[in-house]
């Protein structure tokens, strides 16, 4: 093991990384600063990074002009529903694929994983028609039902279930436990980290979803936050203070949440290497 380089060089490297870090996050800093400026202050040259007003008036006005509270609740409802459903369906499917031998298991697994190769843009038009014909156009169900299970979640959970030693189950079978009982009292409690990681991914993906709600939801009362903040209400597009306030509402809760759970999150990518 060689000695690390002298301290000045180390400081230069760390300084360089820190500068890049600030540049990468500058848009968020700029967003926050803008929300604490007056409409006139925003159009001043040169721009200042120091806020001028220290209250939430831009946020209040943003909430008045666009129904942000409504969008937030809608999004929360949809994202939580999808996460709950995926926990149930994905873990069941993953258990079946990991532990229950049945004919055609490999084919079923391949078919499920194969869906990852199909980009949502390609199936969007027929999916739109199918969902419409099921009578779900403009409903929350349209945002929930098609996403009840995901190949990504099944894959992640299956990989985890397969690492659980079989001895535990064999002991339970000796004691007369059925499959469902093993699943419920042995597999699931042992898989909490994987279930948690999957839930984070699913929730985040649903929170950030834009394209599908854009096409399938017409009724603004049922719209989600990402489409809500990017819509063009007359006059809204030039009021950058308000648009930044709306973006802050959509972004900051997620960033704060992420800071708490980032460890599971980043490790999840290394496990699965999927889902961008």
């Amino acid at each position: 093991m060689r000695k690390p380089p002298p301290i000045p060089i180390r400081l230069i490297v760390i300084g360089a990384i820190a500068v890049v870090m600030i540049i990468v996050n500058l848009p968020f800093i700029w967003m926050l600063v803008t929300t604490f400026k007056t409409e006139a202050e925003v159009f001043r040259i040169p721009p200042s990074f120091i806020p001028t007003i220290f209250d939430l008036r831009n946020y209040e006005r943003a909430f008045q002009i666009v129904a942000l509270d409504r969008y937030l609740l809608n999004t929360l409802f949809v994202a939580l529903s999808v996460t709950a459903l995926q926990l149930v369906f994905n873990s069941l499917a993953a258990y079946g694929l990991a532990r229950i031998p049945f004919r055609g298991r490999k084919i079923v697994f391949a078919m499920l994983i194969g869906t990852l190769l199909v980009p949502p843009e390609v199936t969007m038009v027929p999916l739109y028609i199918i969902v419409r014909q099921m009578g779900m156009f403009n409903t929350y169900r349209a945002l929930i039902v098609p996403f009840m299970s995901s190949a990504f979640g099944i894959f992640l959970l299956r990989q985890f279930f397969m690492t659980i030693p079989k001895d535990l189950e064999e002991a339970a079978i000796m004691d007369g436990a059925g499959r469902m009982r093993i699943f419920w009292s042995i597999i699931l409690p042992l898989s909490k980290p994987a279930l948690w990681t999957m839930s984070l991914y699913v929730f985040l993906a649903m929170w950030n979803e834009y394209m599908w709600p854009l096409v399938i939801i017409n009724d603004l009362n049922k719209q989600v936050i990402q489409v809500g903040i990017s819509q063009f209400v007359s006059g809204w597009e030039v009021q950058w203070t308000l648009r930044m306030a709306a973006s802050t509402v959509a972004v900051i809760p997620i960033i704060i949440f992420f800071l708490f759970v980032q460890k599971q999150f980043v490790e999840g990518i290394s496990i699965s290497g999927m889902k961008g």
Partner: protein
Amino acid sequence: MVVLPSLTTQFIFIYLPLIWAVYISFYNWNMIRPMRYIGLDNYTRMFSNESFWNSMWVTFLYIIGTVPASVLIGLGLALLLNIKWLKGRGIFRTAFYIPVITSMAAAAVIWAWIFEGNYGLMNQLLSAFGIGPIRWLADPNFTLIALMIVGVWKRIGYNMVLFLAGLQNIPSTYYEAAEIDGAKTWTKLIRITVPLLSPTTLFVVILQFIASFRVFVSVSVMTQGGPARSTEVITFYLYENAFRYLRFGYASAIAVVMFILMMVFTVLQFRISKNRVHYG
């Protein structure tokens, strides 16, 4: 059967639409009048349509502009964060990852403000160097560049984390052996890290390629394909045909071509790289 609910939903909401997309692409259909079979007309119309080729060209430029940049910057950051004596690695990693977890829609709204022509931050910063002002989102020469910057910014953290995972998999014995032979940092990088990282690199390139091919949200929020179709990428072209002009058959033909192209490119990249990738 426990797998059945998932299998059914995946079938109804992914495979059925995929098959149906191919089917509809042979029809003329706008949801109002009944479907009419027109054979390959949608395809022949598409291939003789300038707008289609424009969208292919714009998408191609976007891919060329984003894939190398986001992969190389991601690799560079990963190499920096992988330095052994570096402190605060976790903080840096988290900070670089923040753009990845934020929604593209919100990010695009923020970037639209940064790229604003008169008072946007980008032009203000550039004016310090005597450049500009550039009308980023109004001048067809610059709109795609603006979108590329957003696309690269959004993805470098993701690529970095994939590279970091790849770097962890390189056995440290290689480096120890090289150090005994007196190898310099640069030599180790070129002779050990780069070759042994090549499976990860291939993986990152393919994922980035697909992500760039699928760009939609930033276009939809920031430019709506304009001005003068300068940012009308293939996904936005598909979206407009389907949901603005209600040409479902034509839009499905675009979707089918998109799908085939993505498959072909993925397979090609695997093939081409097969001989060059070293599995340590």
